[in-house]
């Protein structure tokens, strides 16, 4: 019988890659992190104010304002999808949260009697159970995010529409709804629980901005989910080879819907936090933030073709954008240059990665 090979096969030409040529050090996230460190050093010499505690807190707070949404979008980008509706989603969740909070805190509004009563003076509104209104209003804001995410996911995974077009449509639909429900005026979080709300969204915890704490917790959770759960593995598989994912029995439709729900939820939470910082939810809030969010994800190393990305990259991208913005202000450069520079950096980050993979 013509047996081609009876001996074991050996691959003498396959070696082990050097540590700096593989893994994190060879990733775009690694390069951008390096660039970020360099930028920090440069800023330290360029401005004495850069490393002051106040400015660092400012930076931490400002980048946290888009970083949570960026984490969510990164999930979607890893599967090879995109979500353009995050900016509108931020506004809508913020608006629903503040409207529900104000509504339930206004005696005479439907359902409000379950949550508040008037104090003896006939004017002061007192919560029946402090914190309950806050909880319900935040859940309402996140609830609409889940619905929008489900609709996005259903259109993309079940109906097979393109993610770009679906979420472009959703960008407009949700922004329109923001104007409809507020009649174009925006809304303000109010009532007895408003103080808790502000404390939890724009306050400090252990000397650090609260949003920054949320970001760190969510990023850690995301790292575990992506690399140590079946769901995370399937998210990467979907972005690497969708057909393979399907053939190996991965529930592709379910995973896709789940990532769009996660993306919308992250955007909704982000919007609620921004609302606490602004003290209101104007109907034009977070307009075009989707571009910053996607730019941050891409700068941090998420690949729009799918299969690559992670929480560290998302955060690094957001920090880089914020440090540049902050640096330009401190360096007294006209702040209108920021947008131009951000565009240059997006292209540079992707270009460096391309050059590196050509050389490897």
């Amino acid at each position, binding site marked *: *019988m*013509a*047996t*081609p*090979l*009876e001996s*074991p*096969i*050996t*691959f003498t030409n*396959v070696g082990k*890659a050097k540590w700096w040529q593989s893994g994190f050090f060879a990733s775009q996230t690694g390069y951008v992190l390096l660039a970020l460190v360099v930028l920090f050093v440069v800023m330290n010499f360029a401005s004495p104010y850069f490393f002051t505690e106040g400015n660092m807190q400012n930076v931490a707070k400002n980048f946290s304002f888009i970083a949570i949404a960026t984490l969510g979008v990164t999930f979607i980008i890893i599967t090879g999808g995109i979500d353009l509706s995050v900016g509108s989603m931020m506004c809508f969740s913020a608006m629903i949260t503040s409207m529900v909070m104000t509504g339930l805190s206004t005696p005479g509004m439907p359902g409000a009697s379950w949550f508040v009563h008037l104090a003896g003076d006939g004017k002061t509104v007192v919560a029946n159970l402090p914190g309950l209104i806050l909880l319900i209003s935040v859940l309402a804001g996140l609830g609409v995010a889940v619905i929008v995410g489900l609709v996005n996911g259903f259109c993309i995974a079940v109906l097979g529409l393109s993610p770009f077009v679906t979420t472009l449509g959703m960008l407009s639909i949700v922004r329109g709804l923001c104007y409809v429900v507020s009649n174009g005026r925006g809304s303000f979080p109010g009532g007895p629980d408003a103080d808790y709300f502000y404390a939890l969204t724009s306050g400090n915890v252990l000397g650090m901005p609260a949003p920054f704490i949320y970001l760190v917790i969510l990023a850690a959770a995301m790292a*575990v989910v992506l*690399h*140590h*759960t*079946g769901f995370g*593995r*399937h998210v*990467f*598989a979907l*972005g*690497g*080879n969708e*057909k*393979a*994912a399907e*053939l*190996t*029995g*991965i529930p592709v439709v379910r995973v896709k819907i789940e990532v769009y729900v996660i993306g919308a939820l992250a955007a909704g939470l982000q919007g609620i936090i921004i609302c606490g910082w602004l003290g209101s939810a104007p109907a034009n809030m977070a307009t075009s933030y989707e571009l910053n969010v996607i730019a941050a994800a891409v700068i941090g190393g998420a690949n729009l073709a799918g*299969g*690559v990305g992670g929480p560290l990259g998302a955060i690094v991208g957001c920090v880089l954008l914020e440090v540049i913005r902050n640096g330009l202000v401190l360096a007294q450069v006209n702040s209108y240059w920021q947008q131009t520079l951000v565009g240059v950096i997006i292209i540079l980050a992707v270009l460096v990665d391309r050059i590196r993979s050509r050389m490897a």
Partner: protein
Amino acid sequence: MISPHVTGQPVLQLTGIGKEFGAIRALHDVGMQIFPGEVVGLMGDNGAGKSTLVKIIAGNFRPSQGEIRFAGNAVHFGRPIDARAVGIEVVYQDLALADNLTAAANVFLGRELKRKFGPFALLDHKAMAARALELFGELRSETRPDDLVKQMSGGQRQAVAIARTRLSNAKLVMMDEPTAAISVRQVEQVLSLIHRLKEQGVAVMLISHRMPDVFAVCDRVVVMRRGEKRADKAIGDTSPEEVTSLITGAKEAA
């Protein structure tokens, strides 16, 4: 050499399989058997019905007529996952691998091993890498479980795809054109992987256009033409010339 395993019960037995797509008769009265440890080459020109037959066995299509018996029992597959459940695996031409994942991750794709941490089930990376290494060892392929598939040679990628079928202890592995788009050296590696499967008593159906590969590795060759089985011969009783004329129709049947 006819495999010594060819005794007893066939792992797969098809009787009178037919398939119509509307007015088009894709398959007519196809019957065949495969025994454990046997490698059968399925040959035929484009449109001869090979793919339809494979898809019926793999559960993608239901046959219009006929009966499929697997390990002696009549089976009816509604979806591919039903076929996989009884032990039929397909290695697809493009291998269905996710380039951005490691070899071990690909072997276990959709069947990840997990460990419970309280309410959470986390991936058991260690166990998966160890089992993948074992499978690559059985296939005598030097494939490292932790390497990314995108850095691998064609032969190693084949090993990953085949290791996936070993994971489930498949009794029948169907390979769709595994040697169509790879180098000569890698073809040898793939053929030796088929031998490894055979040694372990797995029945292999090799769908291929490449005559030398079929004659190098198969015990038997089945030739399809116009939706019918035209020949089913032991490799020793036929020749590439005869198979070619059966495929093209120069010879009607043998």
